[in-house]
């Protein structure tokens, strides 16, 4: 187990460097950000040159990357163009996005798995068909349409929620955005659980448990669910990183000042330091979540042993 974790941690190193290099190159491909700082005018050449120097943009890309990574290891993620340190941006953005992600995952777990269990046990019945259809519709409508629609109906027309989340982003204001963010994954979790439950419901051990005369809920929770949760846990685990970085659209619609918003601003202003800094952290979150999921397998399925 220990050796396995160490090996996985070592493997993270090349992935980490690869991902940061990739995003570094991608942002660099976007071109020179300096002209955007001077509004509708051309920066005078002297100031533009100074600004380029200040942000290290006058050096070749590989050198920029090395300098940047060197700084990252000392905890310096650079500054955004408005002079704000990127670490400060992170300190304000990540708590908000973590809350939003938790809400989204909560919905995925509670609604997704509940629906999944119900449909899996009632395969082919009307309830199965209608939930299945519902999940399909959720998957097939783009998130921004769902988000705008819910904002209009719940926020503006019926006044049930605040259409725009306040800067503190308390949990209750994040319920609807969280639901929107979770919607597609939620549909997947439902379908995943359904398939898995349906498969395991016919297995011998469930039949045995039933034959022993165990009460139904006990069979479901102790025997069926445990074995069916493995693919679901995988999905949710890997979804964490994606939810945190992928909230660009949701955060924009609901005025949430989280990671997605900062990333969007960083991209629009082509601020390499902001974008690379945030993505670096996201990649780390993704990698750690992946590792945790793999370790969780061993807990869920005693047959799996890591050496």
């Amino acid at each position, binding site marked *: 187990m220990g050796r396995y974790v160490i090996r996985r941690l070592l493997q993270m190193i090349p992935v980490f460097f690869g991902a940061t290099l990739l995003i570094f190159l*991608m942002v660099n491909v*976007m071109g020179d950000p300096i002209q955007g700082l001077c509004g509708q005018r051309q920066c005078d050449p002297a100031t533009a040159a100074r600004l380029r120097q200040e942000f290290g943009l006058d050096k070749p890309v590989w050198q920029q990357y090395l300098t940047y990574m060197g700084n990252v290891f000392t905890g310096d993620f650079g500054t955004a163009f408005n002079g704000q340190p990127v670490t400060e941006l992170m300190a304000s953005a990540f708590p908000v996005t973590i809350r939003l992600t938790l809400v989204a995952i909560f919905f995925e777990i509670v609604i997704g798995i509940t629906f999944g269990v119900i449909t899996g046990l009632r395969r082919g019945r009307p309830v199965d068909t209608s939930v299945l259809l519902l999940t399909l519709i959720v998957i097939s409508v783009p998130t921004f349409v769902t988000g705008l629609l819910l904002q209009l109906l719940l926020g503006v027309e019926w006044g049930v929620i605040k259409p725009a989340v306040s800067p503190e982003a308390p949990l209750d204001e994040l319920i609807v955005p969280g639901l929107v963010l979770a919607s597609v994954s939620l549909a997947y979790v439902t379908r995943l659980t359904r398939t898995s439950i349906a498969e395991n419901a016919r297995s011998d051990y469930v039949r045995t448990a039933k034959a022993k005369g165990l009460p139904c809920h006990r069979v479901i929770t102790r025997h069926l669910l445990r074995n069916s949760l493995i693919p679901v846990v995988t999905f949710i685990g890997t979804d964490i990183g994606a939810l945190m970085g*992928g909230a660009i659209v949701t955060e924009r619609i609901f005025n949430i000042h989280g990671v997605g918003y900062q990333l969007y601003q960083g991209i629009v202003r082509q601020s390499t330091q902001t974008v690379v800094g945030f993505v670096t952290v996201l990649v780390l979150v993704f990698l750690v979540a992946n590792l945790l999921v793999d370790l969780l397998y061993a807990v869920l399925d005693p047959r799996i042993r890591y050496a």
Partner: protein
Amino acid sequence: MPEPQYDDRGAIAPTGAGGATDLALSEAETLERPPPGSPLGTGPSGKPRSLWSDAWHDLRRDPVFIVSALVILFLVIISIWPSLIASGNPLQCDLAKAQEGSQPGHPFGFNGQGCDVYTRTVYGARTSVTVGVCATLGVALLGSVLGSLAGFFGGGWDATLSRLTDVFFGIPVVLGGLVLLSVVTSDTVWPVIGFMVLLGWPQLSRIARGSVITAKQNDYVQAARALGASHTRLLLRHIAPNAVAPVIVVATIALGTYISLEATLSYLGVGLKPPTVSWGIDISSASPYIRNAPHMLLWPAGALAVTVLAFIMLGDSVRDALDPKLR
């Protein structure tokens, strides 16, 4: 010690807020191929049927399959000949009619530029189907080739590829789109397709890798190897035909999500560009007007949803047919 088998849980993708970013379902991975020669089903003639003919036998009787296949057939036909059912010109717009509702000859009304929504919805099918089909083909080809090589040869190849897919998985798809596509000036569909292939292949490569690993442990592959079959022959003749099913299933489902992703990219201002007519462009430009003129959004979004639905349901029923356990 080889990687734990469960590490090949390929089908997990970044689920971005784009919604469409999920390129596959983990369900597909649960697919397990029966060893050949097992008493699967036998046809009326007593001759053992292959998995494929068995699946086809099932599919022909599956109403979900028939309906979704018909919808897709219809879409393909109007993509090739949109003028069959729409006589207008999608680029002919009269600002004086902007946002007007349904009226004779214009059943879906007009959009914000005064273009006929019905005509644009019909003509938009071509772009969306092209994007979906081409991106899926590209992803499936690249992903399955790289994935099967990694799965087949293992070792260093495999480790490198697995880490490479991790690198790509770490970057949110919507983010990648914003960054990469914002530098593109071409008004064709190819940059968008290229981007989807670039960020989509790791998905399928994981699945292909997983199923190749499973397939190569089968007795008949071992037997062929013992008989001295070359790598190429092993891969192409023995492993590939038995490992391709999960790839097909995931690809069909992914196809729908690519079509939806195109709309999200347009919403962020980096998708397709006019004069290309696409549902994504129309949905994103109509979405701010959702309060005043919902019909502008409803029709293209509805068409998109139906298309995505058809492809996902097709993928679903193919999976069910290919999965002996669910019979």
